[in-house]
């Protein structure tokens, strides 16, 4: 065991697989010598060579198409998209090609590609360095979509992604790279050193795809989220003194429906949380499914705490981010609903 930031944990996962499996390569913009703008691939080119870890031209569609072509030829590429906001020039290659190649070839061709990309706000990145676009990918049949919330999961999930035979879109909440974050920018930043999930085994392990983590058991209300928002939920429930059951989905597609359903049936109340805009965000899907599966247990409507339906504004970032006070207010409303 070692104490690692999420960056180090991800780096470690990549290092491990690059060492283990000659078919793994990692590439993307500034991924090689520099080690990525957030340092996730730092030192890997030096260790594994420029034929394994390297820079790519600035063309996200090309990056994804290259990865797919390599995967079809037996490799397991891990492509980095520098910011999730910049994944859209590659959207067609993901939607029309990567997600469908197994299907349309009836299993003759498969594309075990992992696309890593930092997402989310909280670093004053403005509208083009803050998006959480996971919902788009959840509407594309054939993609696994994941988002870890801590170093331990990040490493285990990334290894699972790289070993899986389906394409994976792997979102990394950049605000969590260097420490947990409860959604209040005025509280001094904390570090992963003091967090139990900052303890990361050095060897190979996996966190299974499709399995949620119940971060806190509780009986008053179920809170379902992933990424940064689970930290916000934990802090808000704590501060509000609500006995919430908090579920970190980890895998968004296919998500752990049993964990969610069992919990909501138990608590009778549910709040879903994400940073992405509300309309047609993944919270809509969760809500729709929960009201279908748990209708007779629900004591109040499922509530969505999300980003607003606007671009992510720069100066008013903290009015956009669904932070602790908004979650606490929601908890209050939710618990008062009878």
């Amino acid at each position, binding site marked *: 065991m070692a104490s690692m930031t999420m960056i180090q944990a991800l780096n470690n996962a990549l290092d491990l697989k690059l060492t283990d499996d000659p078919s793994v*390569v990692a590439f993307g913009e500034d991924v090689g010598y520099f080690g990525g703008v957030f340092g996730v691939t730092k030192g890997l080119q030096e260790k594994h060579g420029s*034929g394994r870890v390297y820079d*790519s*031209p600035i*063309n996200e*569609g*090309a990056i994804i*198409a*290259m*990865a*797919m*072509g*390599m*995967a*079809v*030829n*037996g*490799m397991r*590429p891990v492509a980095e998209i520098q910011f999730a906001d910049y994944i859209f*020039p590659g959207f*067609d*290659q993901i939607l*029309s*090609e990567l997600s469908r*190649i*197994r*299907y*349309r*070839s*009836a*299993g*003759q*061709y*498969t594309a075990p590609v992992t696309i890593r990309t930092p997402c989310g706000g909280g670093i004053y990145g403005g509208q083009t360095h803050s998006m959480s676009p996971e919902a788009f990918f959840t509407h594309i*049949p*054939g993609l*696994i979509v994941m988002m870890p919330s801590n170093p331990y999961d990040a490493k285990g999930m990334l290894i699972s992604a790289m070993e*899986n*035979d*389906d394409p994976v879109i792997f979102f990394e909440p950049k605000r969590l790279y260097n420490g947990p974050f409860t959604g209040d920018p005025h509280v001094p930043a904390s570090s992963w050193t003091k967090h139990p999930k900052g303890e990361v085994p050095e060897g190979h392990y996996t966190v299974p795809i*499709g399995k949620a983590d119940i971060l806190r058991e509780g009986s008053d209300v179920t809170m379902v989220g992933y990424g940064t928002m689970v930290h916000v939920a934990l802090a808000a429930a704590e501060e509000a003194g609500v006995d919430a059951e908090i579920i970190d989905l980890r895998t968004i*597609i*296919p998500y752990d*429906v049993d964990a969610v359903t069992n919990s909501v049936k138990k608590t009778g109340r549910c709040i879903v949380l994400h940073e992405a805009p509300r309309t047609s965000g993944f919270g809509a899907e969760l809500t729709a499914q929960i009201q279908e599966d748990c209708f007779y247990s629900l004591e109040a409507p499922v509530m969505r705490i999300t980003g607003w339906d606007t671009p992510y504004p720069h100066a008013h970032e903290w009015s956009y981010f669904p932070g602790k006070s908004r979650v606490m207010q929601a908890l209050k409303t939710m618990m008062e609903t009878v």
Partner: protein
Amino acid sequence: MASSNKGIQVPTPRFRPGDRPNFDHLDVPQAGGLPKPAVDADSQNLKEFAFGLVRVLNHNHCAIGDWDPHLSSGMLLDGLKSMVLTRAYDNRMMKMQRTKRLSFYMKCLGEEAVAIAGAAALRDDDMLFPSYRQQGALIHRGADLVDMMCHCISNSRDNLLGRQLPVHYARKDLNWFSISGNLGTQFPQAVGWGVASRAKGNDAIACSWIGDGTSATGDFHAACTMASTYNAPVILNIVNNQWAISTHESIAAGSAESFAAKAIGYGIPGIRVDGNDFLAVYAVTKWAAERARAGLGPTLIETFTYRGEAHSTSDDPSKYRAQDEWKLWPLGDPVERLKSHLIVNGDWSEAEHDDYEAQCTDEVTKAWKESVSYGTLEDGPHSPVETIFEDVFTEQPWHLRRQRQALGY
């Protein structure tokens, strides 16, 4: 380019329905006019090839010049036969579509040499990333016609389980990639395949084809950029058949002198070749393949040809182009040209050709009969209905299981 100062300027084709086509403006150079560069020539010194037109067969049906690949009569005959068979296959499938036995079809009339000479110049383990108009290459690689037809009619033996539109073949056993309905996407994928081949220490290369219209897609630029950056072992073909559905090639070309000229901007060789000249296409592909295999990087080839028929069964070309364009096309018919060459060489005769055509028609008819015995799109049997939920993921997740159950399976 002369121009007025107001209004949006849009290139227009010279001929539209009602016009009498005249291709005198096309500068068709003599066969044998261009030298053949060394396989390891520096791309900086190859620019003339992007503006010329490699041609081997002359007006007298003889092969001349540096680019003559000196193929054996056996190889030439194999090529001719594949072309004739492809044409017979196309004709049959088109007719069957007209009687609604398949939902859609696309012919390659006039472009048979592009795909077949291309495939003939490659090794069987070279990976093909085709568009929908290279069925000739699939036939040349030995695909069984019954298998091809079963795919096209989505019956119980369709290897794609009825999931794909007709003509979107996928054949891993023949190193033939899955054809996409989305134009151009396979071009940069081919580059990735090629790079992986080298990464693994193999010398198999990738070869892809797109149309003139498709050269405008972002994926074209993605492919050329990546191919150049990573010195990928790949052959990138632009099949300039003059039309993209109803859109003339000048809409994609703008004021460009050729499509091959785009190669110059990527520092890779760009070669324009007479796409209706089997020998020329073979020779240029072979040169590019040797280059790629030797680790010397990608080549962009423009095969200059003409789409002899409708874009697909969904359009009627008489609505947008002059009627006799193909007949007046100065580069002729690739089948006739190779046939004449073989006859001139004494290796073939009109009678043998007629016989062979008849044989192909029979073969195609027989294949059709067998294919429909395994089902048709209209009446089935098809693949089992529950297969629509398979292969979305390696393992079927809960939501797809629920959906399958909701459908009653």
